[in-house]
């Protein structure tokens, strides 16, 4: 029997893109009814990005959206029409949580700000994910997660010493803000259960982003020191880096901290003479001659496949891992064993891997209850079954174009 943690909880999500919807992924994967409010005029941003099934650019063939949208419902609702808004407000009156991840001001335009919502549902919990929070001079400055890579200073920590920094290609904070945001959200749900009180949760992507950089910020505030990019080097480990292996663009990450690990590393690769050189004897020696050491190690790694380098080193207790690309991850035996991807047939995408949850709960595991929704797939179900609309009423809205 399934034990759904959030059984009976209903979430209405007016948000889009990544951080907002990914926060609610937690609730959907653990059994809440999470309704994405979209429309054909305004589909989720991720429905308009690659990849598309057979490269046919249609909203229901967008893999980026579907990958993150397991277990969710979708209603298509034109909020710019009065009756669309009326239905949205009806949904709010049935909801436990309302979520938004637009720029502050957008929800207010629809009269769906927190002050409006509590008039409809006094104990509502509203969670708002935005780039810089709901208040302050930059609150309404538009932007996406990628911009926060710059603003939060993450970009300054990527690159080779004394060279231009290199940006991440992904909107890094977008994918971890949800971890933080949902702790507050679940806490608020529990608080409401105990006290009957709802509340507003204001999550700034910028402020959450800084939580992963605290040591460097404190280092500046205390020592006036700016942390700098160090390539792949570490202050604590040497050798430490990414080494070229046999094949095209194949690499293995290796990290040796203790002298015992260094000894094991030497043994594992057959104690070649160069490793006995005095310039590599102690960690301090190795750090001093790191560049030379890395070049020599690469002479060894480049004769082996990355998987083999990992296996040889892991067998003797040295931290090593293949630099996995998407194909490697897709086939990764560890991820497979832990059922990290939820594979199911999707009517537009075919056999499709949805992203699961990164942990296993022993008694209430997350699982795939339903595949990612097509746009508006549940419009009728939500209106008729959840909101109890008559057939006549529903058809009236349909003709009026409310669901387009």
């Amino acid at each position, binding site marked *: 029997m399934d034990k759904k*943690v959030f059984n009976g909880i209903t979430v209405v999500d007016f948000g889009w893109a990544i951080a907002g919807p*990914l926060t609610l992924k*937690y609730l959907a994967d*653990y059994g809440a009814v999470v309704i994405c409010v979209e429309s054909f005029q305004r589909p989720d941003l991720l429905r308009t990005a690659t990849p598309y099934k057979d490269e046919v650019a249609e909203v229901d063939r967008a*893999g980026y959206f579907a990958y993150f949208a397991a277990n969710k419902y979708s209603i298509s609702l034109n909020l710019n029409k009065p009756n669309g808004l009326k239905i949205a407000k009806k949904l709010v009156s049935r909801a436990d949580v309302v979520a938004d991840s637009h720029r502050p001001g957008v929800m207010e335009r629809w009269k769906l700000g927190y002050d409006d919502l509590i008039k409809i549902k006094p104990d509502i919990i509203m969670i708002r994910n935005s780039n810089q929070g*709901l*208040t302050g001079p930059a609150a309404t400055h*538009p932007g996406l997660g*990628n911009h926060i890579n710059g*603003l*939060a*200073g993450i*970009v*300054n920590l*990527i*690159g*080779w010493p004394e060279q231009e920094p*290199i*940006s991440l*290609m*992904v909107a890094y904070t977008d994918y971890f803000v949800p*971890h933080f945001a*949902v702790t507050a959200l679940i*806490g608020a749900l*529990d*608080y409401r259960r105990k006290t009957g*009180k709802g509340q507003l949760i*204001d999550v700034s992507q*910028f*402020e959450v982003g800084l*939580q*992963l*950089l605290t*040591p460097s*910020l404190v280092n500046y*505030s*205390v*020592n006036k020191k700016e942390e700098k*990019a*160090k390539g792949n080097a*570490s202050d604590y*480990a040497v050798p430490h880096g*990414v080494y070229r292996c046999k094949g095209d663009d194949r*690499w293995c*990450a*290796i*990290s040796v901290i203790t002298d015992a690990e260094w000894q094991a590393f030497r043994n594992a690769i057959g104690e070649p003479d160069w490793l006995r050189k005095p310039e590599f004897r102690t960690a301090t020696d190795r750090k001093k001659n790191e560049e030379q050491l890395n070049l020599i190690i690469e002479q060894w790694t480049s004769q082996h496949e990355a998987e083999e380098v990992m296996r040889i080193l892991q067998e003797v207790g040295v931290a090593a891992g293949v*630099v*996995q*690309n*998407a194909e*490697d991850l897709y086939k990764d035996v560890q991820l497979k*064993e832990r059922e990290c*991807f939820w594979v199911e047939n999707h009517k537009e995408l075919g056999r*499709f891997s949805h*992203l*699961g949850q990164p942990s*296993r*709960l*022993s008694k209430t595991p997350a699982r795939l209850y339903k595949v990612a929704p097509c746009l508006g797939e549940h419009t009728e179900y939500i209106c008729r079954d959840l909101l109890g609309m008559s057939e006549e009423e529903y058809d009236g809205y349909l003709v009026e174009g409310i669901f387009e």
Partner: protein
Amino acid sequence: MEQVKGLLGSYRVLDLTDEKGFLCGKILADLGADVIKIEKPGGDESRKLGPFYRDIPDPEKSLYWFAYNLNKRGITLDIESRDGQQIFKRLVKTADFVIESFTPDYLDGIGLGYTALSKINPRLIMTSITPFGLDGPYKNYKATDIVVMAMGGLLYITGNPDEPPLRISLSQAFLLASAHGAAASMVAHFYRETSGEGQHVDVSAQECVLWEIANAIPLWELNKNILRRAGSYMSGRWTGTKQRLLWKCQDGYVLFYVLGGAFGVKTNKAIVRWMEEKSMVPEYLKNFDWSIFDMANQTQEMQDLIETPIANLFLKYTKEELYSEAQKRGIMLCPVSTSKDILENAQLKSRDFWVEVSHPELSTSITYPGAFAKLSQTPLTFRYRAPLIGEHNLDIYQGELGLSHSKLAILQRAGVI
């Protein structure tokens, strides 16, 4: 720093983690939980992690320790000794969460695994944070940050195309795992509060890194296209065309990209207007119809034609000037901030983001990043600086468990506490 109960005010967390799990307990502590960091006698190894207060390496001056143990209390205990285990089990009776980041099976091996502890306290939630999870073929693989970043897929897509993949210089993988660990613990907590049952939460850091790689998996599954690193460009979201993300300006860099679709129109028009004002707009951009500009049909040649004059515009300004213009003009652009910039950022100041925490033994107070969320009813609170070694031993062992002075002296001499 007043005592406010917060969301988790009546719950206790026993935190056995090292740096792989510090942030998990810190998040729960920020939500109000009473988090007790348990270190081995003499102090945690992680206290050796820099940076240090005034660059003085000292277990009581690790800024890394300060940063991620803020809001916790601390005791010392040798959980491998018999006496230590008995004390730990007594603490477990009244605890709500235990979080740990030992190698898989370690706690089982010393009789303190989930099965044993859940017998003492069936409501207990135990959260284990490990590189690859508690089962599967790689469960015993050793890993540091760079290895997990490699195995989780973020490394491969970061860096210049003709150079080795690059990591973020400040370790991230276990911070991601810790943040997720807090979230998953809250899921289990919600279930416990409604059912009375605790459970074991098994977090894989590799899978947390996997969350970070955008559309790489569906891109492979649907189109057999491998997302590859492209330096400071974004690729793989629309066509094969790459969009520049990082731009040089007079005193540093800014983050900006030319986006298609309805979402990009306002920014793109505003940039052209700005170029017009500076007489820097090329002929072909003067009457450009941004409403039909779509990345899906964009060629690299056209993208470069658009980006080149923008690059020239940005070179005329400092990052502060660019950010201030961007805010005035509604352009999606942010500076690449240094730590100094962040500490001085007006938005953060206006939101009272920073917290000043007193460190009496250093005769100073230190500025820390504040709340990760603003909750209208139950704001996050900052109550203590990170604990000194064994700082709360008396409070816990004597005040709570009622151990006598002489018993404590014996335990101390035996190296148990």
